[in-house]
């Protein structure tokens, strides 16, 4: 466990050094989404009985949390593995390898949570104010954890940085747009809807929207998130052990 805390300590030091860069990078894209889709496209639009701006903000929170957690960890681990080659120094240290993976994933989850809070603050000038409660924080954290674990696993599997770009293009970006973040899935053809239901971001977006807009909170979606988080974490740990062949 102390190994995971050491990784968290390192990520905290890094975060302190780059606080301004990290923070500004986290809010630029969401602000553009809110201006373009919230003010531009959706000014007079209602979605499932809500103002469009109120409707999309939970989606922007979930996708930003996903991008932030995934990006922070996949970038960090792939750079240390492939470019700096400092990941090997972790493996050479007397630590339990599963804590090495879990420490990074926790750091990514916290980064995702931080991004979520930022988006809520960004929403205020757009006239959207949500009360933040424990379920909201838990879902944001699990969402970040899930995608940090996916980022860790992807970073352990790739051979070049180009592979990571491809992974982001084919997996992360489609999820950002398709998983009910900007529109209701009811409008999609049945087959496509079923496919999108399998994706993890669909469930975190649905839960966050239900929490802030007062909808029905589906425990099934939360269980799906936990299942994905567990599977990605186990895959990450296995990939870490396989690095020491």
């Amino acid at each position: 466990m102390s190994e995971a805390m050491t990784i968290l300590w390192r990520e905290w030091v890094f975060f302190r050094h780059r606080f301004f860069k990290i923070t500004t990078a986290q809010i630029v894209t969401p602000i553009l989404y809110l201006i373009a889709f919230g003010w531009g496209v959706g000014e007079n639009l209602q979605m499932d009985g809500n103002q469009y701006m109120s409707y999309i903000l939970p989606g922007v929170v979930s996708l930003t949390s996903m991008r932030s957690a995934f990006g922070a960890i996949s970038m960090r681990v792939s750079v240390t593995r492939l470019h700096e080659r400092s990941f090997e120094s972790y493996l050479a240290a007397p630590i339990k390898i599963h804590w090495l993976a879990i420490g990074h994933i926790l750091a990514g989850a916290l980064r995702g949570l931080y991004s979520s809070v930022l988006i809520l603050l960004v929403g205020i000038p757009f006239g959207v104010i949500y009360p933040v409660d424990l379920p909201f924080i838990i879902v944001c954290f699990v969402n970040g954890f899930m995608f940090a674990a996916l980022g860790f696993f992807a970073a352990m599997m790739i051979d070049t940085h180009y592979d990571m770009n491809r992974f982001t293009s084919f997996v992360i970006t489609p999820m950002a747009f398709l998983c009910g973040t900007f529109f209701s899935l009811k409008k999609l053809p049945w087959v496509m809807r079923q496919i999108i239901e399998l994706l993890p971001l669909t469930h975190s977006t649905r839960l966050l929207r239900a929490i802030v807009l007062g909808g029905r909170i589906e425990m099934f979606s939360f269980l799906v998130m936990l299942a994905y988080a567990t599977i990605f974490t186990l895959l990450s740990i296995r990939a870490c052990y396989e690095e020491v062949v």
Partner: protein
Amino acid sequence: MIQIETLTKQYGEITAVNNLSLSIDAGRFFGLLGPNGAGKTTLIRMMVGLIGSDEGEVHIDGHLIHRDANAIKKRIGIVSQHMNLDKELSVFENMEFSGRMYGLSGKESRARAEEMIEFFGLQKHRAKICKKLSGGMKRKLMIAKALMHQPTVLFLDEPTVGVDAVARRDIWRLLKEINSSGTTILLTTHYMEEAHTLCDEIALMNTGKILQKDTPEGLISRLGQTAVESDSATKYFAEMSGAKQYAATLEELYTIRKTTLEDVFISMSEGATL
């Protein structure tokens, strides 16, 4: 003490390390020399637990690497040939992080980092972010990091590659001090002068095997203390008289000089039997 018994590692059809046995006494400054692809890095990676072996065993201070990997890892420090520093952290933070990774508390890590900063003369650079350090400073920091947990054995895989001559000599001085304080050092390098200056025992390795193990002077003696170098060939002689006799038969320009460790290395790489 390091004891290696019949160690073997294969990658497909290539045998990187071939039934290799070796022992290194505690407190030694031991050099491992060989051409590229000789199996040195694979051997070191097995010794430090980064890769497993197909056969054989490695014991360090009585611990078996397969069984007590973490106990061994606590006793060893590793300086990789790659600049594997955390580029986003400062010099002091890099050291503290390394200490924490090896089980020191935050307070212990900071105290030890202060000691290392003083020993390595890094006081002016302690707050610098690593990516802004010169190559020589980075190498010093890598060695300092590897010593944070006070290992009994230090593995140096080409620790001065890319470092200028002045900084290299500074690092040699520090390494000698570290060794004289009782730390066993295992060095691989392509700089023969470095091996000759630092090591009190050297193993020559090729095709996954140790070909010879001796002191630097012992290895040179096996080849011949005196070299006669001409455009067409370099010949080695045990006595100066033999060298002069041979040189007199040459019809081209020649040089008579002392045999160096580099001559030993080249001869071994070309397949000569010492």
